[in-house]
């Protein structure tokens, strides 16, 4: 099957600055594909190239098998976009926002009305249909944007930080809806800073940093490969370091503590507590966050 997105050596420069640097990836039909990475990694820039709103500088980018240059309108008519920054139309109500947006896709009025009813139910905003945008909460706005992204019944849904700033309930509702969309056979590409979100939703993901892709794979495998099954945490002292060195464990300092990545947490813990006579030791399952921090470092990005 033709991949939904196929990028090869995709590059974006703003003047001298390279925001996306020769990235290559493939998104297959029906999968949920995630882009993770610290602030400024180049996620939004990559999304905007896929959406055909920002021209690439170099490389090849195919969406639905079409090279994007020159086919923008055709591609965009089959994509739904949830942008990072809310851009609902403040001059209109909830319902009008969806109706006006459906016109941009040349949807006939009766069909648009039917789709909009369905979508308002889908995102649980039926009661807010006549509410002006400024009166919506952050979560409602995000849900409305999701509904808006679906008015053209897109084959590919692109979400740039869909759940940013939402409470757990709203976040769970969006996750639920994204799974439903996926189960209908649509393809989803999303970016997120919530690693739990990525772990739950994504079939595959990439971690980006400074414009490049560091790793790619299913979340579980990435954890296993880069962090092992478990993390054992202990105070960062010379004794602990010596002890871990003796055990031959992989470890890294994370602030005041040392984190050891291991598939045999019990052995490591027993060794630390028993042989090395140490108090503060904790073992927990490794997560995507461990992989993320290991690969991208702890330093804050500008």
């Amino acid at each position: 099957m033709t991949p939904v997105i196929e990028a090869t050596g995709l590059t974006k420069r703003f003047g001298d600055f390279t925001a996306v640097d020769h990235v290559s990836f493939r998104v297959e039909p029906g999968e949920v594909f995630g882009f993770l990475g610290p602030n400024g990694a180049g996620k939004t820039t990559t999304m905007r190239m896929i959406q055909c709103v920002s021209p690439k500088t170099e490389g090849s980018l195919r969406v639905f098998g079409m090279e994007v240059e020159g086919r923008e309108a055709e591609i965009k008519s089959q994509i739904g976009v949830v942008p990072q920054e809310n851009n609902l139309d403040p001059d209109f109500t909830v319902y009008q926002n969806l109706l006006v947006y459906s016109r941009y896709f040349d949807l006939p009025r009766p069909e648009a009305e039917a789709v909009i009813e369905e979508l308002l139910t889908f995102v649980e905003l039926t009661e807010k249909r006549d509410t002006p945008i400024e009166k919506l909460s952050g979560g409602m706005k995000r849900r409305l944007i999701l509904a808006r992204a679906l008015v053209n019944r897109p084959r590919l849904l692109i979400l740039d930080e869909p759940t940013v700033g939402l409470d757990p309930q709203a976040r769970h509702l969006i996750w639920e809806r994204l799974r439903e969309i996926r189960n209908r056979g649509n393809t989803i590409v999303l970016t997120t800073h919530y690693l739990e979100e990525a772990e739950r939703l994504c079939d595959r993901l990439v971690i980006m940093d400074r414009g490049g892709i560091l790793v790619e794979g299913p979340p579980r495998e990435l954890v296993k490969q880069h962090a092992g099954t478990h993390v054992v945490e202990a105070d960062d002292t010379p004794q602990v370091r010596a002890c871990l060195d003796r055990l031959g464990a992989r470890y890294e300092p994370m602030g005041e503590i040392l984190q050891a990545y291991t598939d045999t947490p019990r052995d490591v813990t027993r060794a630390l507590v028993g042989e090395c006579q140490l108090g503060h030791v904790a073992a927990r399952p490794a997560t995507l966050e461990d992989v993320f921090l290991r690969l991208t470092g702890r330093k804050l990005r500008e």
Partner: protein
Amino acid sequence: MSNPLGLLALPRLTPRVFHVWQRNRDVFVKTYRVNFLPPFLEPILYLLSLGFGVGSFIPEIAGVSYPEFIAPALISITIMNAGFFECTYASYVRMYYQKTYDAIIATPLTIDEVIVGEILWGATRALINTTIMLPVLFLFGVVDLPWAILVIPFAFVAGLLFASIGMCFTALTPGIDTLNLPTFLFITPMFLFSGTFFPLSLLPAPVQYLAVGLLPLTHVVTVIRSLTLGVPATMLPFSLLWLAVATVLLFLFSVNLMKRRLVV
């Protein structure tokens, strides 16, 4: 950037342009009460104070009464303001603060189509305001039918020009505050020195040349005055030609300048 001819590139358009126009029309209709009042009241206020007030000291100007002389200028100024302000402050707010353009270009519409839709809407505002004004002026007995009817379609064309000029400034302005510069340095002088409230011939010759060469409002006033008085001005053919060329050039400039700003 290096190719100056890039400024003249033709926009690629589809009928979807109309959806941008529709969006603005829908907002306009929602708030119609505030939108209809100014073009209705403004000519009355100007006619009463300038036309009949100041005008009572002026027995005749260029062969007509003073209110008849300024009536076409009032229409021209309305067209200028409608087109220019719609595509400067209003468009800038939609582009920068409301992110309306960002939302629209995520659909099959291109940035070309968004800008052209905005300019068409600016021209439509000029047409709407003129249509509201004309009957008021007619009731005051200061416009001559039937020629004055042609002012309505002409308002759309002249509106296109001022909307395009506005859009050029929107494309170039660093922020919303700096839009005050073209307003004070370009729109206000035009308002005063385009043969609006006194004949151009009263100005020193060099200033006259400047007004004829560079101020679009001069030519709009010439055309509309010819229509509302029912007497073609000597300069009429030249003014029509000047307006045609300027409208085409500035329309193309505005779309391409906007693309430079927004396609990154």
